[in-house]
């Protein structure tokens, strides 16, 4: 049985027509299932766990990146394939997984190309895409062996795919290799007008980020604050449904 988790915003009037098309297409493909609508004071994760106990075979998120983040923990814990039907703005995860927006996503879902991917942990919080820290005093310690610091303040990214708030997602890390990729981009001035980005790339299994003051770390687009962040990987923890156009 397919379990569809609808985000609150897709129940808005402006998505009514698109949702009707999606529901019709799912019925045509024979993969319609139980619908759970997210709402205030309703824990989507708990509902996924309950439905898994009742025999759900696939969890499908209908919404955007933030909707996926809300049920990521539960989907990984119950070990069910996770599908996405991207609706509305901010759907970078779906793009990385090769899932087109709206009704076309139903066909990708029906094809059931399942990949197992790694997930990351930032201070115990699970992430799929990556972590981004932008602070001049942030220092990265890789595998407890060496410290990496940008000399003029750069942006530290820990990529399983690529952080969803990253400026570009042309260069996506492989989420199936059992490694995270630490990236530090430092801009240096070359001549009067030109600036060049120098990109450091380090494969890591675990790392930590420290700063002398409280800093913000963006974990799959959600902000966390602290002076110390532990990062690790859970190899091949999550099953996801992907399209042929996936970017990794």
């Amino acid at each position, binding site marked *: 049985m397919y379990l569809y988790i609808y985000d609150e915003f897709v129940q808005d009037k402006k998505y009514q027509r698109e949702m009707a098309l999606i529901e019709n297409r799912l019925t045509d493909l024979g993969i319609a299932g139980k619908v759970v609508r997210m709402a205030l004071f309703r824990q989507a994760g708990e509902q996924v766990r309950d439905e898994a106990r009742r025999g759900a075979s696939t969890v499908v998120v209908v919404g955007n990146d933030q909707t996926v983040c809300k049920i990521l923990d539960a989907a990984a814990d119950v070990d069910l394939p996770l599908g996405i039907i991207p609706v509305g703005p901010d759907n970078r995860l779906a793009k990385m997984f090769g899932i087109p927006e709206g009704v076309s996503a139903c066909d990708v879902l029906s094809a059931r190309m399942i990949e197992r991917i790694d997930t990351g942990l930032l201070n115990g919080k699970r992430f799929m895409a990556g972590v981004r820290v932008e602070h001049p005093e942030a220092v990265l310690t890789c595998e407890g062996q060496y410290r990496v610091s*940008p000399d003029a303040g750069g942006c530290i990214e820990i990529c399983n795919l690529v952080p969803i708030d990253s400026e570009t997602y042309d260069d996506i890390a492989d989420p199936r290799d059992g490694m995270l990729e630490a990236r530090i981009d*430092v801009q240096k001035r070359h001549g009067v007008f030109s600036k060049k980005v120098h990109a*450091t790339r380090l494969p890591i299994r675990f790392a930590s980020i420290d700063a002398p003051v409280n800093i913000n770390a963006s974990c799959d687009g959600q902000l966390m604050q602290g002076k110390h962040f532990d990062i690790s990987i859970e190899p091949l923890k999550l099953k996801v449904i992907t399209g042929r156009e996936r970017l990794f």
Partner: protein
Amino acid sequence: MFKRDENGAVHGGETVIAQGVKVEGDFTSSGNVIIEGEVAGSVKIEGDLRVGDAARIHADVAARNAVVAGEIEGNIVVSEKLDLGATSKVAGDVTASVLEVAAGASVNGRVSMGGGSSKRKKEDVVEES
């Protein structure tokens, strides 16, 4: 050894320590590594190493093959071929099976060769030191 596209970007999953970044501690890698920044501590690489002309390394370095264009202050042990470019400056002992030194390179230390197989010894070339 390393693949770069027209824009100089590196592909193929290599480890890169770029300009503007400082690494302190025991740096190890099982793959190929490009160093263009600053490293202090020790460097142990199972694959190939490229040291860019802006790189400054204050560490003992071990790698399979190495191409050096920057500064290394420390001993270098390369199991196969070490290529010292015209802009390279080495202050430390050098051990390699095959050594190639370009005009302009500077080496201040002992150079030991011949650790490889007998077949390799015949191929050893020292152009200039």
